[in-house]
């Protein structure tokens, strides 16, 4: 029983039930015709029927064939993927349904609901409800107006039933109405199941979405945690480095210096030697610090010469983002300090990222120039710019980095967004009158 309570089960039951009803009505018609011929009331029947009936064998053949064609088309319709095939199959199904109703002299129009059930089963929008509406109106119109439009002669079921006596006739008509009613009950139940099924599916999707959202949130929290952990780890590492290198060296130096203070008066020679040792330790400490700092630098900067590293970075970014990045280098200072390289690298990286993220630019032009005193970098994109620039984290960060090198940053919208960074090379340039950023 549980099996029938699914939509598919009910759909099958509709088919089986309609097949049964059609078979019974067809058998009734065929048997009545045979009986009429045996009881010598053929002429009276013809007069009442108002049309020439098909012979029993033809009714049987045509009904069986039409019903099985309908079942086949129905299966193909449900299985088919392409939309045009679906429309074609549905049209074929309607035609076969009409034919089947004609063969049965319109005595049973339950097949219309069968076609409707097929259409509903594969309901996917596409204005299918209009197709269904039109198809059902047409089919019922034909059924109820006795094919007046097709001018086909139809023998009413009542003519067949009239062959029997009044009691039997009323029973027969009642039976036929029962067939109708049960079919409608089945169909409505099928629809209820279908709606319930759709509703459950929606509910399931909603639940899944909720769970997905929950998982996302957990993932975000975890990501923050991981970032914090990384930060902590990095801090610990730094602390360790400082402790191991600077701490070690400084402790050594402090201890050495204490000894030197003690021995300065007694043994200046020894102290001298000792101070040399302390200097070596300090130098070694500096090397260690440098090595530690190096570990924090971007990989490209570590691996390649600075200019190539810049080109590599922009090439990678344009490859991954699809943005066209061009370089225009007028002059270049070859003896940049590492911290200067770092800042230039970060400024370019941040500006390109901003051009893509905020300006949605497709082209970025990077111009680098200057003289022995300063380096000027202009990054211009063709994005949509920004009327009122709010200094976000990125810009603030760039300013901070540049200010550490006594550099300046300016930015404005023109035919895109333009960032102009200036880095002094060997001396203070704050009051340099030769330089005008605007």
């Amino acid at each position, binding site marked *: 029983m549980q099996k029938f309570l699914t939509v598919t089960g009910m759909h099958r039951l509709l088919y089986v039930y309609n097949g049964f009803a059609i078979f019974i009505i067809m058998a009734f018609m065929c048997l009545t015709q045979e009986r009429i011929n045996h009881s010598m009331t*053929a*002429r009276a029947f*013809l007069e009442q029927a108002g*049309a020439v009936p098909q*012979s029993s064998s033809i009714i049987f053949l045509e009904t069986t064939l039409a019903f099985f064609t309908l079942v086949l088309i129905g299966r193909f319709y449900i299985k088919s993927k392409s939309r045009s095939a679906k429309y074609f199959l549905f049209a074929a199904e309607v035609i076969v349904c009409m034919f089947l109703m004609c063969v049965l002299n319109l005595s049973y129009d339950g097949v219309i609901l069968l076609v409707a059930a097929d259409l509903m089963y594969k309901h996917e929008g596409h204005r299918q409800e209009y197709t269904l509406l039109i198809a059902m109106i047409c089919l019922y119109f034909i059924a109820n107006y006795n094919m007046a439009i097709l001018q086909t002669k139809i023998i009413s079921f009542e003519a067949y039933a009239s062959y029997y006596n009044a009691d039997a006739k009323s029973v027969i008509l009642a039976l036929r109405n029962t067939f109708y009613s049960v079919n409608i009950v089945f169909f409505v139940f099928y629809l209820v199941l279908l709606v319930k099924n759709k509703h459950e599916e929606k509910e399931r999707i909603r639940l899944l979405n909720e769970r997905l959202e929950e998982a996302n949130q957990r993932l975000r929290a975890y990501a923050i945690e991981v970032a914090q952990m990384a930060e902590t780890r990095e801090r610990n590492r730094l602390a360790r480095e400082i402790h191991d290198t600077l701490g070690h060296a400084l402790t050594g130096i402090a201890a050495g210096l204490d000894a030197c203070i003690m021995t300065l008066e007694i043994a200046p020679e020894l102290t001298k030697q000792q101070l040399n040792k302390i200097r070596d330790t300090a130098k070694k400490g500096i090397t260690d610090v440098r090595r530690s700092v190096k570990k924090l630098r971007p990989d490209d900067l570590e691996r390649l010469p600075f200019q190539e590293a810049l080109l590599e970075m922009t090439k990678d970014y344009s490859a991954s983002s699809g943005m066209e990045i061009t370089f225009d280098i007028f002059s270049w200072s070859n003896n940049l300090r590492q911290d200067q390289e770092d800042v230039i690298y970060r400024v370019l990286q941040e500006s390109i990222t901003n051009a893509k993220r905020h300006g949605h630019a497709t082209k970025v032009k990077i111009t680098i120039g200057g003289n022995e005193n300063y380096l000027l970098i202009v990054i211009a994109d063709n994005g949509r710019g920004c009327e009122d620039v709010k200094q976000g984290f990125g810009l603030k960060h760039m300013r901070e980095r540049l200010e550490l090198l006594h550099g300046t940053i300016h930015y404005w919208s023109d035919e895109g967004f333009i960032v102009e960074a200036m880095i002094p090379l060997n001396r203070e340039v704050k009051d340099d009158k030769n330089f005008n950023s605007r």
Partner: protein
Amino acid sequence: MLKKFLIAVVVIAIIFLYYMASRPTTLTVGIFAGNNWDVPQGETYAIIDEVIENFEAENPGVKVKYVSGIKKEDYSEWLAEQFISGSEPDIFFVLADDFNLYASIGALMNLEDFIAGDKNFSVDVYYPAAFKFGQYENISYALPCESTLTFMFVNKTLLAKEGVAIPKNDWTWEDFLKICRKVTRDIDGDGVPDQFGCYDYSWQQAAISNGVKFFRDDGKTSYFADSRMEEAVKFIMELRGLNGGFEVSPKDFDVGRVAFRPFTFAEYRTYKPYPWRIKKYSSFEWDCIKMPAGSSGGNISVMETLLVGMSSRTHNKNLAWALLKKFCYDEKTQQLILKKSQALPVRRDVIISAEAQEIFSWETRDTAAITPADISVAMDEAIMPFKFKNYNAAMLYADTELTKIIAGIVPFNNALNKLQKEINALLQY
């Protein structure tokens, strides 16, 4: 695998088609034993056998079959059963009562396209009343095969004894009444008349010869209150009055004591030649003439026609049409009908042919009261019977009422108006 299967299907299809093509085509004919005119007949299937033989000779590979032994009274039911079981004959004789039913339910093939498309076919050869009888709502569904007309039987011996000349074919009610008045008398002197003017002359016959049309063609209204109808009824009442209330019996007629009696041509054909000639009406000389003309009509009578139709579900339309033409149009068949059947052929050229002259000359030309030319004119003038659904019921009712009127049971004044109203009400169902 699929290829083999396809080849097998094609081979089977070819064998099947070859079998279908090589199988002789069979046409079936629906026919009843005897004839349509309720007269005795010797060789029931002589004509159809000969027609079929001719047709099969002309169309090699075609077989024509029929079921023999179906009586006329069973034929209607038999045909309906054949239709219900889907095994109806390709062409079949249609009884007048069945024609409208079969035409209206689409059992009969619409012949208009065949008629229009066949260069060798012309409807002009038929008498209009015969051809139109095969139409339903102005569309031909059947062709006439043979017809019969009502004539007036004349007892020549009796008229000669009374010194009255045989009336001409254009005689009128006055002539009829005059002769009847003259011959009605008491011969043996027992106080009641024992020689009569006419027997079995009905109000219908009188009305038709006075130009009355009983119903509208669609059978939804009647014209019994027509003034010509009134004339006819009055004439019949006058004619009855001559007998002094004495009813004429068939025996009076058979023994030759009645001068006139309406007689169908089929009866004339049956009883005039040998052997029936000596079995019935042998004690007197007799002949047939046209019906007397009413004052507002003519020498008109009803022409009954036997129709042949084609099933609308036949698989061999063109062959069926050819066979239908063989029965109803072919000159040889029509001459066969003239020669062997009791009825009249429906082709005008066959009726007035030399063969007809020969066949009808049971008596010498100058003494014969009616010639093929007269018959042809009568057929042209004849009207066809009504055949709508309620016709028989309406006519039965009218007959009952008119019999009362004629017998004087119901007063005559305004009775016809009342009758018309009642019949119209009956026709609405």
